[in-house]
Protein backbone atom coordinates (compact mmCIF):
# COMPACT_ATOMS: atom_id res chain seq x y z
CA UNK A 1 0.00 0.00 0.00
CA UNK A 2 2.86 2.30 0.87
CA UNK A 3 4.48 1.79 -2.52
CA UNK A 4 1.24 2.34 -4.42
CA UNK A 5 0.49 5.58 -2.64
CA UNK A 6 4.00 6.98 -3.19
CA UNK A 7 3.88 5.98 -6.82
CA UNK A 8 0.44 7.54 -7.06
CA UNK A 9 1.73 10.82 -5.63
CA UNK A 10 4.67 10.78 -8.02
CA UNK A 11 2.37 10.14 -10.97
CA UNK A 12 0.04 12.92 -9.85
CA UNK A 13 2.98 15.32 -9.61
CA UNK A 14 4.10 14.24 -13.09
CA UNK A 15 0.62 14.80 -14.57
CA UNK A 16 0.39 18.19 -12.88
CA UNK A 17 3.82 19.15 -14.19
CA UNK A 18 2.93 18.19 -17.77
CA UNK A 19 -0.32 20.13 -17.48
CA UNK A 20 1.58 23.19 -16.20
CA UNK A 21 4.23 22.91 -18.93
CA UNK A 22 1.56 22.59 -21.62
CA UNK A 23 -0.32 25.66 -20.40
CA UNK A 24 2.89 27.62 -19.88
CA UNK A 25 4.17 26.84 -23.36
CA UNK A 26 0.78 27.72 -24.84
CA UNK A 27 0.73 31.04 -22.95
CA UNK A 28 4.17 32.02 -24.12
CA UNK A 29 3.48 30.79 -27.65
CA UNK A 30 1.08 33.71 -27.99
CA UNK A 31 3.96 36.03 -27.09
CA UNK A 32 6.45 34.36 -29.39
CA UNK A 33 3.90 34.27 -32.18
CA UNK A 34 3.93 38.07 -32.12
CA UNK A 35 7.70 38.25 -31.77
CA UNK A 36 8.14 35.95 -34.79
CA UNK A 37 5.56 37.93 -36.76
CA UNK A 38 7.27 41.19 -35.84
CA UNK A 39 10.66 39.83 -36.85
CA UNK A 40 9.36 38.61 -40.21
CA UNK A 41 7.58 41.86 -40.96
CA UNK A 42 10.45 44.01 -39.69
CA UNK A 43 8.51 45.47 -36.78
CA UNK A 44 9.30 45.82 -33.08
CA UNK A 45 6.46 43.67 -31.73
CA UNK A 46 5.15 43.70 -28.16
CA UNK A 47 7.57 45.63 -25.95
CA UNK A 48 5.39 47.53 -23.45
CA UNK A 49 4.51 45.09 -20.66
CA UNK A 50 7.72 44.41 -18.75
CA UNK A 51 11.23 44.03 -20.21
CA UNK A 52 10.98 42.93 -23.88
CA UNK A 53 7.23 42.71 -23.30
CA UNK A 54 7.45 39.36 -21.55
CA UNK A 55 4.38 40.13 -19.41
CA UNK A 56 2.27 40.54 -22.53
CA UNK A 57 0.46 37.16 -22.11
CA UNK A 58 -0.51 38.13 -18.55
CA UNK A 59 -1.82 41.47 -19.76
CA UNK A 60 -3.78 39.65 -22.48
CA UNK A 61 -5.26 37.24 -19.96
CA UNK A 62 -6.37 40.09 -17.70
CA UNK A 63 -7.89 41.87 -20.69
CA UNK A 64 -9.73 38.71 -21.73
CA UNK A 65 -11.17 38.17 -18.26
CA UNK A 66 -12.27 41.80 -17.91
CA UNK A 67 -14.26 41.86 -21.16
CA UNK A 68 -18.01 41.45 -21.15
CA UNK A 69 -19.03 37.81 -21.40
CA UNK A 70 -21.70 38.03 -24.06
CA UNK A 71 -24.13 35.28 -25.04
CA UNK A 72 -26.35 35.97 -28.07
CA UNK A 73 -30.07 36.02 -27.27
CA UNK A 74 -31.12 33.50 -29.93
CA UNK A 75 -28.28 31.08 -29.29
CA UNK A 76 -28.41 27.63 -27.75
CA UNK A 77 -27.02 28.72 -24.40
CA UNK A 78 -25.64 25.45 -23.05
CA UNK A 79 -24.03 24.40 -26.30
CA UNK A 80 -22.63 27.92 -26.68
CA UNK A 81 -20.83 27.46 -23.36
CA UNK A 82 -19.90 23.84 -24.10
CA UNK A 83 -18.11 24.69 -27.37
CA UNK A 84 -14.95 26.32 -25.97
CA UNK A 85 -14.90 23.88 -23.03
CA UNK A 86 -14.87 20.90 -25.41
CA UNK A 87 -12.11 22.53 -27.44
CA UNK A 88 -9.93 22.89 -24.36
CA UNK A 89 -10.75 19.38 -23.13
CA UNK A 90 -9.81 17.64 -26.35
CA UNK A 91 -6.70 19.77 -26.72
CA UNK A 92 -5.44 18.72 -23.29
CA UNK A 93 -6.36 15.02 -23.48
CA UNK A 94 -3.84 14.02 -26.15
CA UNK A 95 -0.78 14.51 -23.93
CA UNK A 96 -1.85 11.53 -21.78
CA UNK A 97 -0.18 9.02 -24.08
CA UNK A 98 2.82 11.06 -25.23
CA UNK A 99 5.93 9.60 -23.58
CA UNK A 100 7.78 12.64 -22.25
CA UNK A 101 10.61 10.57 -20.84
CA UNK A 102 12.00 7.16 -19.97
CA UNK A 103 11.62 5.53 -16.56
CA UNK A 104 12.77 7.62 -13.60
CA UNK A 105 14.32 5.82 -10.60
CA UNK A 106 12.90 7.33 -7.39
CA UNK A 107 14.87 5.07 -5.01
CA UNK A 108 13.46 2.23 -2.89
CA UNK A 109 12.79 0.29 -6.07
CA UNK A 110 10.24 2.83 -7.26
CA UNK A 111 10.21 3.31 -11.01
CA UNK A 112 8.16 6.20 -12.38
CA UNK A 113 7.22 5.97 -16.03
CA UNK A 114 7.28 9.49 -17.45
CA UNK A 115 4.13 8.94 -19.48
CA UNK A 116 0.52 9.52 -18.47
CA UNK A 117 -0.85 6.12 -19.44
CA UNK A 118 1.05 3.45 -21.33
CA UNK A 119 -1.79 1.76 -23.19
CA UNK A 120 -1.04 -0.59 -26.05
CA UNK A 121 -3.22 1.48 -28.37
CA UNK A 122 -1.45 4.79 -27.69
CA UNK A 123 -1.31 6.10 -31.23
CA UNK A 124 -4.97 5.28 -31.85
CA UNK A 125 -5.80 7.26 -28.73
CA UNK A 126 -4.07 10.29 -30.27
CA UNK A 127 -5.97 9.69 -33.49
CA UNK A 128 -9.29 9.37 -31.66
CA UNK A 129 -8.84 12.56 -29.66
CA UNK A 130 -7.79 14.46 -32.78
CA UNK A 131 -10.98 13.32 -34.50
CA UNK A 132 -13.01 14.54 -31.52
CA UNK A 133 -11.29 17.93 -31.59
CA UNK A 134 -13.68 19.22 -34.21
CA UNK A 135 -16.71 18.97 -31.91
CA UNK A 136 -15.78 22.11 -29.96
CA UNK A 137 -15.63 24.19 -33.13
CA UNK A 138 -18.69 22.54 -34.65
CA UNK A 139 -20.93 22.94 -31.60
CA UNK A 140 -19.75 26.48 -30.86
CA UNK A 141 -20.27 27.56 -34.46
CA UNK A 142 -23.76 26.12 -34.65
CA UNK A 143 -24.87 27.34 -31.22
CA UNK A 144 -23.94 30.94 -32.10
CA UNK A 145 -26.95 31.09 -34.44
CA UNK A 146 -24.96 33.11 -36.93
CA UNK A 147 -24.52 32.24 -40.59
CA UNK A 148 -20.83 33.09 -40.70
CA UNK A 149 -20.16 31.03 -37.59
CA UNK A 150 -22.10 28.12 -39.08
CA UNK A 151 -20.13 28.23 -42.33
CA UNK A 152 -16.91 28.31 -40.31
CA UNK A 153 -18.03 25.30 -38.28
CA UNK A 154 -19.00 23.33 -41.38
CA UNK A 155 -15.68 24.15 -43.02
CA UNK A 156 -13.87 22.96 -39.90
CA UNK A 157 -15.78 19.68 -39.93
CA UNK A 158 -15.16 18.87 -43.58
CA UNK A 159 -11.53 19.93 -43.36
CA UNK A 160 -10.85 17.78 -40.29
CA UNK A 161 -12.48 14.70 -41.77
CA UNK A 162 -10.60 15.08 -45.07
CA UNK A 163 -7.18 15.48 -43.50
CA UNK A 164 -7.71 12.79 -40.87
CA UNK A 165 -7.69 10.16 -43.62
CA UNK A 166 -4.26 11.11 -44.92
CA UNK A 167 -2.97 11.44 -41.36
CA UNK A 168 -4.20 7.95 -40.50
CA UNK A 169 -2.58 6.49 -43.61
CA UNK A 170 0.75 8.14 -42.81
CA UNK A 171 0.58 6.73 -39.27
CA UNK A 172 0.01 3.23 -40.69
CA UNK A 173 3.50 3.31 -42.25
CA UNK A 174 4.94 4.10 -38.80
CA UNK A 175 3.02 1.17 -37.33
CA UNK A 176 4.43 -1.13 -40.00
CA UNK A 177 7.97 -0.09 -39.10
CA UNK A 178 7.66 -0.34 -35.32
CA UNK A 179 5.16 -3.19 -35.17
CA UNK A 180 3.28 -1.72 -32.24
CA UNK A 181 0.49 0.74 -31.50
CA UNK A 182 2.04 1.80 -28.20
CA UNK A 183 3.72 5.21 -28.30
CA UNK A 184 6.29 3.98 -25.78
CA UNK A 185 7.30 1.10 -28.07
CA UNK A 186 7.43 3.42 -31.07
CA UNK A 187 9.93 5.62 -29.19
CA UNK A 188 11.93 2.66 -27.92
CA UNK A 189 12.37 1.32 -31.45
CA UNK A 190 13.88 4.67 -32.44
CA UNK A 191 16.54 4.82 -29.73
CA UNK A 192 20.22 5.46 -30.58
CA UNK A 193 19.52 7.60 -33.61
CA UNK A 194 17.24 5.23 -35.58
CA UNK A 195 14.73 8.03 -35.94
CA UNK A 196 11.71 7.33 -38.09
CA UNK A 197 12.30 10.47 -40.14
CA UNK A 198 15.16 8.59 -41.81
CA UNK A 199 12.79 5.83 -42.92
CA UNK A 200 9.70 7.96 -43.48
CA UNK A 201 10.58 11.22 -45.23
CA UNK A 202 7.33 11.26 -47.24
CA UNK A 203 5.22 10.14 -44.29
CA UNK A 204 6.55 12.97 -42.17
CA UNK A 205 5.74 15.60 -44.81
CA UNK A 206 2.19 14.24 -45.08
CA UNK A 207 1.83 14.15 -41.31
CA UNK A 208 3.02 17.71 -40.75
CA UNK A 209 0.71 19.08 -43.47
CA UNK A 210 -2.20 17.24 -41.87
CA UNK A 211 -1.17 18.54 -38.45
CA UNK A 212 -1.40 22.09 -39.81
CA UNK A 213 -4.88 21.36 -41.11
CA UNK A 214 -6.05 19.67 -37.91
CA UNK A 215 -4.82 22.59 -35.78
CA UNK A 216 -6.64 25.04 -38.10
CA UNK A 217 -3.42 26.97 -38.61
CA UNK A 218 -2.54 29.07 -41.63
CA UNK A 219 -2.42 28.15 -44.52
CA UNK A 220 -5.38 25.95 -43.58
CA UNK A 221 -7.26 28.32 -41.24
CA UNK A 222 -10.34 28.43 -43.47
CA UNK A 223 -12.75 27.96 -40.51
CA UNK A 224 -11.78 31.40 -39.22
CA UNK A 225 -11.02 33.04 -42.53
CA UNK A 226 -11.42 36.75 -41.75
CA UNK A 227 -11.65 37.90 -45.34
CA UNK A 228 -14.71 35.75 -45.99
CA UNK A 229 -16.27 34.91 -42.64
CA UNK A 230 -15.58 37.80 -40.23
CA UNK A 231 -14.24 35.60 -37.44
CA UNK A 232 -15.49 32.22 -38.59
CA UNK A 233 -16.76 29.94 -35.84
CA UNK A 234 -15.82 32.34 -33.05
CA UNK A 235 -17.56 35.40 -34.52
CA UNK A 236 -20.03 35.60 -31.63
CA UNK A 237 -17.59 34.74 -28.88
CA UNK A 238 -16.08 37.25 -26.50
CA UNK A 239 -14.17 37.31 -23.24
CA UNK A 240 -12.55 34.14 -21.94
CA UNK A 241 -14.71 31.88 -24.13
CA UNK A 242 -12.91 33.34 -27.15
CA UNK A 243 -9.72 33.05 -25.12
CA UNK A 244 -10.33 29.32 -24.67
CA UNK A 245 -10.73 28.83 -28.41
CA UNK A 246 -7.53 30.71 -29.19
CA UNK A 247 -5.70 29.06 -26.33
CA UNK A 248 -6.70 25.54 -27.35
CA UNK A 249 -5.17 26.24 -30.77
CA UNK A 250 -1.80 26.96 -29.15
CA UNK A 251 -2.09 23.89 -26.92
CA UNK A 252 -2.84 21.82 -30.03
CA UNK A 253 0.28 23.19 -31.70
CA UNK A 254 2.50 22.20 -28.78
CA UNK A 255 0.94 18.76 -28.38
CA UNK A 256 1.08 17.98 -32.09
CA UNK A 257 4.73 19.04 -31.99
CA UNK A 258 5.27 16.55 -29.16
CA UNK A 259 3.43 13.84 -31.11
CA UNK A 260 5.58 14.50 -34.19
CA UNK A 261 8.71 14.34 -32.02
CA UNK A 262 7.45 11.00 -30.66
CA UNK A 263 6.55 9.48 -34.00
CA UNK A 264 9.33 10.76 -36.26
CA UNK A 265 12.13 12.30 -34.21
CA UNK A 266 12.92 9.65 -31.62
CA UNK A 267 10.94 11.08 -28.71
CA UNK A 268 13.27 11.40 -25.72
CA UNK A 269 16.29 10.13 -27.64
CA UNK A 270 19.19 12.57 -28.04
CA UNK A 271 22.82 12.24 -29.12
CA UNK A 272 25.28 11.55 -26.29
CA UNK A 273 22.75 9.68 -24.15
CA UNK A 274 25.16 6.91 -23.15
CA UNK A 275 27.86 9.42 -22.23
CA UNK A 276 25.46 11.27 -19.88
CA UNK A 277 24.34 7.99 -18.29
CA UNK A 278 27.96 7.01 -17.64
CA UNK A 279 28.96 10.38 -16.22
CA UNK A 280 25.91 11.66 -14.29
CA UNK A 281 23.70 8.60 -13.77
CA UNK A 282 20.41 7.47 -15.24
CA UNK A 283 18.06 10.04 -13.73
CA UNK A 284 19.87 13.07 -15.13
CA UNK A 285 19.86 11.42 -18.55
CA UNK A 286 16.11 10.77 -18.29
CA UNK A 287 15.39 14.36 -17.29
CA UNK A 288 17.51 15.57 -20.20
CA UNK A 289 15.34 13.32 -22.38
CA UNK A 290 12.25 15.17 -21.13
CA UNK A 291 14.00 18.38 -22.11
CA UNK A 292 14.71 16.84 -25.54
CA UNK A 293 11.02 16.06 -26.17
CA UNK A 294 9.93 19.53 -25.11
CA UNK A 295 12.72 21.12 -27.15
CA UNK A 296 11.73 19.18 -30.28
CA UNK A 297 8.10 20.15 -29.72
CA UNK A 298 9.10 23.81 -29.41
CA UNK A 299 11.00 23.60 -32.70
CA UNK A 300 7.76 22.40 -34.30
CA UNK A 301 5.84 25.25 -32.65
CA UNK A 302 8.34 27.63 -34.25
CA UNK A 303 7.81 25.94 -37.65
CA UNK A 304 4.05 26.41 -37.22
CA UNK A 305 4.60 30.15 -36.66
CA UNK A 306 7.17 30.43 -39.44
CA UNK A 307 4.74 28.93 -41.94
CA UNK A 308 1.88 31.08 -40.67
CA UNK A 309 3.72 34.31 -41.43
CA UNK A 310 5.16 33.05 -44.72
CA UNK A 311 2.42 31.30 -46.69
CA UNK A 312 -0.92 32.92 -47.48
CA UNK A 313 -4.22 31.14 -46.93
CA UNK A 314 -5.47 28.57 -49.46
CA UNK A 315 -8.73 28.88 -51.31
CA UNK A 316 -11.31 26.37 -50.13
CA UNK A 317 -11.33 24.20 -53.26
CA UNK A 318 -7.52 24.16 -53.20
CA UNK A 319 -7.65 22.91 -49.62
CA UNK A 320 -10.02 20.07 -50.49
CA UNK A 321 -8.09 19.25 -53.67
CA UNK A 322 -4.82 19.00 -51.77
CA UNK A 323 -6.38 16.77 -49.14
CA UNK A 324 -8.24 14.33 -51.36
CA UNK A 325 -6.27 14.22 -54.60
CA UNK A 326 -2.83 15.08 -53.25
CA UNK A 327 -2.20 13.78 -49.77
CA UNK A 328 -4.32 10.62 -49.69
CA UNK A 329 -2.78 9.06 -52.84
CA UNK A 330 0.67 10.09 -51.58
CA UNK A 331 -0.01 8.47 -48.21
CA UNK A 332 -1.17 5.28 -49.94
CA UNK A 333 2.00 5.28 -52.04
CA UNK A 334 3.96 5.73 -48.82
CA UNK A 335 2.33 2.65 -47.28
CA UNK A 336 3.17 0.57 -50.36
CA UNK A 337 6.73 1.93 -50.48
CA UNK A 338 7.28 1.17 -46.79
CA UNK A 339 5.96 -2.35 -47.27
CA UNK A 340 8.20 -2.95 -50.29
CA UNK A 341 11.31 -1.61 -48.58
CA UNK A 342 10.62 -3.70 -45.49
CA UNK A 343 10.02 -6.79 -47.59
CA UNK A 344 13.34 -6.49 -49.40
CA UNK A 345 15.56 -5.44 -46.52
CA UNK A 346 14.35 -5.87 -42.96
CA UNK A 347 13.00 -9.37 -43.38
CA UNK A 348 16.15 -10.50 -45.21
CA UNK A 349 18.32 -9.28 -42.37
CA UNK A 350 19.84 -6.48 -44.44
CA UNK A 351 21.37 -3.44 -42.78
CA UNK A 352 19.28 -0.47 -41.68
CA UNK A 353 21.07 1.75 -44.14
CA UNK A 354 19.62 -0.24 -47.02
CA UNK A 355 16.15 0.49 -45.62
CA UNK A 356 16.95 4.18 -45.34
CA UNK A 357 18.38 4.30 -48.85
CA UNK A 358 15.38 2.38 -50.20
CA UNK A 359 12.90 4.79 -48.60
CA UNK A 360 14.59 7.89 -49.95
CA UNK A 361 15.18 6.31 -53.37
CA UNK A 362 11.47 5.47 -53.60
CA UNK A 363 10.51 9.05 -52.81
CA UNK A 364 13.05 10.36 -55.35
CA UNK A 365 11.74 8.03 -58.08
CA UNK A 366 8.20 9.14 -57.31
CA UNK A 367 9.18 12.82 -57.56
CA UNK A 368 10.94 12.28 -60.91
CA UNK A 369 7.95 10.35 -62.22
CA UNK A 370 5.55 13.06 -61.04
CA UNK A 371 7.67 15.76 -62.68
CA UNK A 372 7.66 13.93 -66.03
CA UNK A 373 3.96 13.16 -65.77
CA UNK A 374 2.95 16.75 -65.02
CA UNK A 375 5.22 17.94 -67.85
CA UNK A 376 3.48 15.57 -70.25
CA UNK A 377 0.06 16.68 -69.03
CA UNK A 378 1.07 20.32 -69.43
CA UNK A 379 2.22 19.71 -73.01
CA UNK A 380 -1.00 17.88 -73.83
CA UNK A 381 -3.08 20.75 -72.44
CA UNK A 382 -1.01 23.25 -74.34
CA UNK A 383 -1.56 21.31 -77.59
CA UNK A 384 -5.29 21.09 -76.89
CA UNK A 385 -5.67 24.80 -76.33
CA UNK A 386 -3.37 25.91 -79.14
Amino acid at each position, binding site marked *: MEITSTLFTAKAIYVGAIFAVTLGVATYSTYFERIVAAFMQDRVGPDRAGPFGIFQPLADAVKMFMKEDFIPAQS*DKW*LFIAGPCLSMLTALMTSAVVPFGDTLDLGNGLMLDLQGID*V*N*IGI*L*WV*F*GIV*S*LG*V*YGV*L*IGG*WASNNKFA*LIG*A*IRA*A*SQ*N*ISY*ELAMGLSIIAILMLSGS*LSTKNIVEVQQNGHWNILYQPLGFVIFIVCAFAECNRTPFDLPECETELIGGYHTEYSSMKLGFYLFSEYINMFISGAVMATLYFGGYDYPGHDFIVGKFGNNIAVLLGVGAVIGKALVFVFIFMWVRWTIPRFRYDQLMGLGWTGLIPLAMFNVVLTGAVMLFTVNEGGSNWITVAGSWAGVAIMLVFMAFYSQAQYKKKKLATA
Partner: protein
Amino acid sequence: MNFWYFLTALTLLSALMVVLSKNPIHSVLYLVFTFFCISGHYVLLNAQFLMVVNIVVYAGAIMVLFLFVIMMMDLSKNMPDSKTTITKLAGAVLGGTLLIIVVAATRKMDLREVVSPQTFSSQTGMVEGLGKILYRDYVLPFELISVLFFVAMVGAVMLGKREAGERNF
Protein backbone atom coordinates in the same frame (compact mmCIF):
# COMPACT_ATOMS: atom_id res chain seq x y z
CA MET B 1 -19.46 -3.91 -10.56
CA ASN B 2 -20.87 -0.72 -9.05
CA PHE B 3 -19.21 1.26 -11.79
CA TRP B 4 -20.80 -1.04 -14.32
CA TYR B 5 -24.28 -0.22 -12.98
CA PHE B 6 -23.51 3.50 -13.07
CA LEU B 7 -22.21 3.29 -16.64
CA THR B 8 -25.16 1.20 -17.80
CA ALA B 9 -27.66 3.60 -16.27
CA LEU B 10 -25.86 6.49 -17.96
CA THR B 11 -25.88 4.65 -21.30
CA LEU B 12 -29.59 3.89 -21.12
CA LEU B 13 -30.41 7.43 -20.02
CA SER B 14 -28.47 9.07 -22.84
CA ALA B 15 -29.86 6.57 -25.36
CA LEU B 16 -33.37 7.50 -24.23
CA MET B 17 -32.53 11.17 -24.54
CA VAL B 18 -31.52 10.56 -28.17
CA VAL B 19 -35.10 9.55 -28.88
CA LEU B 20 -36.84 11.98 -26.57
CA SER B 21 -35.10 15.29 -27.20
CA LYS B 22 -36.89 17.70 -29.55
CA ASN B 23 -33.80 19.22 -31.13
CA PRO B 24 -32.01 16.95 -33.66
CA ILE B 25 -28.64 18.49 -32.77
CA HIS B 26 -29.16 17.55 -29.14
CA SER B 27 -30.13 14.05 -30.29
CA VAL B 28 -26.86 13.67 -32.16
CA LEU B 29 -24.84 14.94 -29.21
CA TYR B 30 -26.61 12.50 -26.88
CA LEU B 31 -25.84 9.75 -29.38
CA VAL B 32 -22.15 10.72 -29.26
CA PHE B 33 -22.34 10.52 -25.49
CA THR B 34 -23.96 7.08 -25.76
CA PHE B 35 -21.05 5.92 -27.90
CA PHE B 36 -18.67 7.10 -25.22
CA CYS B 37 -20.58 5.12 -22.60
CA ILE B 38 -20.43 2.02 -24.83
CA SER B 39 -16.68 2.60 -25.18
CA GLY B 40 -16.52 2.63 -21.39
CA HIS B 41 -18.18 -0.79 -21.41
CA TYR B 42 -15.53 -2.03 -23.85
CA VAL B 43 -12.82 -0.88 -21.43
CA LEU B 44 -14.53 -2.77 -18.60
CA LEU B 45 -14.54 -5.83 -20.86
CA ASN B 46 -10.78 -5.42 -21.40
CA ALA B 47 -11.17 -4.56 -25.08
CA GLN B 48 -9.12 -1.39 -25.48
CA PHE B 49 -8.81 -1.69 -29.23
CA LEU B 50 -12.57 -1.92 -29.77
CA MET B 51 -13.02 1.05 -27.46
CA VAL B 52 -10.72 3.31 -29.38
CA VAL B 53 -11.96 2.15 -32.78
CA ASN B 54 -15.52 2.80 -31.61
CA ILE B 55 -14.53 6.36 -30.72
CA VAL B 56 -12.54 6.99 -33.90
CA VAL B 57 -15.11 5.59 -36.30
CA TYR B 58 -18.44 6.42 -34.69
CA ALA B 59 -17.87 9.44 -32.45
CA GLY B 60 -15.07 10.89 -34.53
CA ALA B 61 -16.21 10.41 -38.11
CA ILE B 62 -19.79 9.24 -38.58
CA MET B 63 -21.34 11.48 -35.95
CA VAL B 64 -19.41 14.50 -37.25
CA LEU B 65 -20.98 13.84 -40.64
CA PHE B 66 -24.42 13.50 -39.01
CA LEU B 67 -23.97 16.85 -37.25
CA PHE B 68 -22.68 18.32 -40.49
CA VAL B 69 -25.84 17.35 -42.37
CA ILE B 70 -28.28 18.30 -39.61
CA MET B 71 -26.68 21.71 -39.16
CA MET B 72 -27.32 22.45 -42.82
CA MET B 73 -31.07 21.94 -42.35
CA ASP B 74 -33.34 24.75 -41.30
CA LEU B 75 -34.49 23.65 -37.88
CA SER B 76 -36.62 26.72 -37.13
CA LYS B 77 -39.04 25.71 -39.87
CA ASN B 78 -41.71 23.49 -38.40
CA MET B 79 -41.57 20.39 -40.52
CA PRO B 80 -44.88 18.59 -41.16
CA ASP B 81 -45.13 15.26 -39.45
CA SER B 82 -43.86 12.94 -42.14
CA LYS B 83 -44.35 9.77 -40.15
CA THR B 84 -47.37 7.99 -41.58
CA THR B 85 -48.91 4.95 -39.97
CA ILE B 86 -47.06 2.64 -42.36
CA THR B 87 -43.62 4.02 -41.47
CA LYS B 88 -44.47 3.81 -37.78
CA LEU B 89 -45.63 0.21 -38.23
CA ALA B 90 -42.52 -0.69 -40.22
CA GLY B 91 -40.34 0.86 -37.53
CA ALA B 92 -42.13 -1.08 -34.82
CA VAL B 93 -41.76 -4.36 -36.74
CA LEU B 94 -38.06 -3.78 -37.44
CA GLY B 95 -37.33 -2.77 -33.85
CA GLY B 96 -39.29 -5.71 -32.52
CA THR B 97 -37.41 -8.14 -34.78
CA LEU B 98 -34.09 -6.78 -33.60
CA LEU B 99 -35.22 -7.09 -29.99
CA ILE B 100 -36.25 -10.73 -30.55
CA ILE B 101 -32.90 -11.54 -32.17
CA VAL B 102 -30.97 -9.96 -29.30
CA VAL B 103 -33.08 -11.68 -26.66
CA ALA B 104 -32.74 -15.04 -28.44
CA ALA B 105 -28.97 -14.62 -28.67
CA THR B 106 -28.79 -13.71 -24.98
CA ARG B 107 -30.89 -16.69 -23.96
CA LYS B 108 -28.48 -19.05 -25.71
CA MET B 109 -25.56 -17.66 -23.71
CA ASP B 110 -24.67 -19.68 -20.64
CA LEU B 111 -23.82 -17.17 -17.92
CA ARG B 112 -23.23 -19.84 -15.28
CA GLU B 113 -20.03 -20.92 -16.94
CA VAL B 114 -17.63 -18.54 -15.22
CA VAL B 115 -14.20 -18.15 -16.76
CA SER B 116 -11.64 -19.61 -14.42
CA PRO B 117 -8.70 -17.36 -13.53
CA GLN B 118 -6.26 -20.10 -14.56
CA THR B 119 -7.33 -20.26 -18.19
CA PHE B 120 -8.22 -16.58 -18.59
CA SER B 121 -5.75 -14.66 -20.72
CA SER B 122 -5.48 -10.96 -19.92
CA GLN B 123 -4.47 -10.31 -23.53
CA THR B 124 -7.79 -11.50 -24.97
CA GLY B 125 -9.17 -8.12 -26.00
CA MET B 126 -5.83 -6.56 -26.92
CA VAL B 127 -5.01 -5.64 -30.47
CA GLU B 128 -2.41 -8.41 -30.90
CA GLY B 129 -4.88 -11.15 -29.97
CA LEU B 130 -7.61 -9.62 -32.09
CA GLY B 131 -5.32 -9.34 -35.11
CA LYS B 132 -4.23 -12.96 -34.81
CA ILE B 133 -7.81 -14.18 -34.63
CA LEU B 134 -8.94 -11.99 -37.52
CA TYR B 135 -6.09 -12.93 -39.84
CA ARG B 136 -5.75 -16.59 -38.89
CA ASP B 137 -9.17 -17.99 -38.03
CA TYR B 138 -11.53 -15.58 -39.77
CA VAL B 139 -9.46 -14.37 -42.70
CA LEU B 140 -12.05 -15.19 -45.38
CA PRO B 141 -15.01 -13.38 -43.73
CA PHE B 142 -12.71 -10.49 -42.94
CA GLU B 143 -11.57 -10.12 -46.55
CA LEU B 144 -15.14 -10.53 -47.82
CA ILE B 145 -16.25 -7.68 -45.54
CA SER B 146 -13.53 -5.49 -47.01
CA VAL B 147 -14.84 -6.30 -50.50
CA LEU B 148 -18.31 -5.34 -49.27
CA PHE B 149 -16.95 -2.05 -47.99
CA PHE B 150 -15.29 -1.40 -51.32
CA VAL B 151 -18.56 -2.03 -53.14
CA ALA B 152 -20.34 0.35 -50.77
CA MET B 153 -17.68 3.00 -51.41
CA VAL B 154 -17.99 2.69 -55.17
CA GLY B 155 -21.76 2.87 -54.84
CA ALA B 156 -21.54 6.03 -52.75
CA VAL B 157 -19.25 7.65 -55.31
CA MET B 158 -21.62 6.64 -58.11
CA LEU B 159 -24.60 8.15 -56.30
CA GLY B 160 -22.75 11.31 -55.37
CA LYS B 161 -21.19 11.94 -58.76
CA ARG B 162 -23.04 14.22 -61.13
CA GLU B 163 -22.22 13.99 -64.82
CA ALA B 164 -22.26 17.19 -66.84
CA GLY B 165 -25.79 17.86 -68.09
CA GLU B 166 -27.29 15.08 -66.03
CA ARG B 167 -30.24 15.74 -63.77
CA ASN B 168 -29.38 15.70 -60.08
CA PHE B 169 -31.71 12.88 -59.05
